[in-house]
């Protein structure tokens, strides 16, 4: 990893030069991230009103108490985590299988990959609207197709809506898992596979005992990135359900958007968003710790 620097490169001017190069990034990250985060934290501990911004007062953890005692918050949390759980698990299983299938392919390799990876490059609002109509009972071709076999599913009925949204997420984001696993597969060492072959191990054993353990670090990163992203699901809800039927698809990002920019309860929105920050940080720490254990 570390590069040996020649004597020419290690002098005093370098120690200033390297910070000069880094400085613009530090400065801009400070302006675009540290300042907004501080401001947001300030809002979460105050009672801020956009109509009368000067009347704000420090309320301590009152906003957080209000948020955490609101049953709606817990409904939103349950919906969001259910969505993430369903979407990410299906994506991981399908993603690994498709990546394995693609990695053995020789003919039309790039063309096939380009098509299969395409959904992740489309703006999510377009995907949401696309499926809203594809699955629509009057206009969509899937219900029309199923009707020919006398099957009738109300994809946006109260029982299935969250599941439908999760499956739309699967359509769009399984390619991301495929991409990560393909990258992981290409950097795998060949020796263990040859050894297993010499010993006459069958395919399933090789997959379970060698491929999967070697892919574990990549898989963990992919799951983490995808979960953090799925936590922010917004466009599908905005395009298709607006949180309904009832509150069955009210998810975090949509809820915060509604609190902040529907009702302009900006302090409450900030407080909810900080509970998300805490959850993300816990997830990140667990990830970093487990990857450290792995490498030591």
């Amino acid at each position, binding site marked *: 990893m570390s*590069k*040996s620097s*020649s004597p*020419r490169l290690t002098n005093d001017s*370098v120690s200033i030069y390297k910070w000069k*190069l*880094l400085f*613009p990034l530090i400065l*801009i*990250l400070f302006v*675009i*991230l540290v300042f*907004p*985060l501080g*401001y*947001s934290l300030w*809002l979460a501990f105050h009672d801020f009103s*956009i109509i009368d911004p000067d009347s704000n007062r420090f309320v301590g953890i009152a906003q957080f108490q209000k948020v955490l005692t609101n049953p709606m918050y817990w409904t939103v949390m349950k919906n969001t985590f259910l969505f993430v759980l369903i979407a990410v698990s299906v994506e991981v299983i399908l993603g690994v299988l*498709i990546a394995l*299938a*693609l990695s053995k*392919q020789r003919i039309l390799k790039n063309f096939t990959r*380009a*098509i*299969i990876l*395409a959904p992740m*490059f*489309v*703006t*999510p*609002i377009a995907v949401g*609207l*696309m499926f809203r*109509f594809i699955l629509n009972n009057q206009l969509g*071709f899937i*219900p029309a197709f199923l009707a020919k076999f006398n099957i009738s599913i109300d994809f946006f009925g109260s029982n299935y809506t969250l599941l439908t949204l999760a499956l739309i997420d699967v*359509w769009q984001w399984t390619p991301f898992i495929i*991409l990560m696993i393909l*990258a992981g597969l*290409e*950097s795998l060492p*060949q020796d263990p*596979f*040859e050894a297993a072959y010499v010993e006459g191990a069958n*395919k399933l054993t090789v997959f379970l005992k060698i491929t999967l353990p070697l892919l574990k*670090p990549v898989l963990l*990163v992919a799951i983490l990135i995808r979960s953090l992203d799925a*936590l*922010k699901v*917004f*466009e599908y809800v*905005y395009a298709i359900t607006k949180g309904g039927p009832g509150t069955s698809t009210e998810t*975090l*990002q949509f809820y915060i958007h509604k609190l902040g*920019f529907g009702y302009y309860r*900006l302090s409450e929105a900030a407080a909810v*968003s900080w509970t*998300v*920050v805490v959850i993300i940080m816990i997830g*990140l720490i667990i990830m970093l710790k487990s990857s450290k254990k792995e490498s030591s």
Partner: protein
Amino acid sequence: MNSYQKETFLFKTVRILFIWISILTVLIPFIWVILSSFKSPSDLSDATNVFFTPILKNWINVFNSGIPINFINSFIVAFITILISLIVGLPAAYSISKFKTGGNFTKLGILIAEVVPSATLVVPIFLASYYLEINGSILPVIFAHLTFIIPIITWFLIGFFDAVPNSLEEQALIDGCTRFGALIKIIIPQVLPGVGAASIFGFVLSWNDMFYALILGGENTQTLPMAIAGFNTFRGVQLGEMSVAILVSAIPTIILSFFIQKRLIKMMGGGAIKE
């Protein structure tokens, strides 16, 4: 192919079938939208009909609407975002890769910057732009896009600089180049293909964002995702036009993705996974 990688006939058949199902699952929704974009309102009500007289009315309507302006807005926002990201990201990534500036602390900082949720940032950015009276312009949208695009581009660039051999720079210094001159003339050209791929990736991320654009953008500065969402309110009647709008937004990013696909796999392998 090594001998141990040989597949049985059954295995190969299942695998190819599986790939075909995946391809069809991806393609059929796109094909349906393409067909819908050429259908008249009466043809649209028959979802499974693939034999119809194609009309161009939807496309003409969309191109006479505000969509071209939204397209330009999206382009400007993404372009400026990438430009700023490269200006600060390139020297910083070089410094981190070459001199390990700030050690793990810097890398951890970039990682944390990448995972800060948009919902936390959008409220303060909204208020700040309100007080600065720039709300409704493209400035707050660009500002917000920088928050997630700078960290990811810098992360990828670190991986590219890591792959450049040290000897190249040393040779340039011996030949009398200044250090900064060597960076501009020798090192940057080496990573240029990677910079291109990372820029395209960042461009797509900015182009596709709706959350920030919805909250921070204004009536006159709507980007494409916002414009597409606008067709939603009219429901079935505007399905044809909406299909066109979906295609107008999706086609450029899908074409761009073809160019970076191979390199993206390498980028993920080099940057995201190793750390």
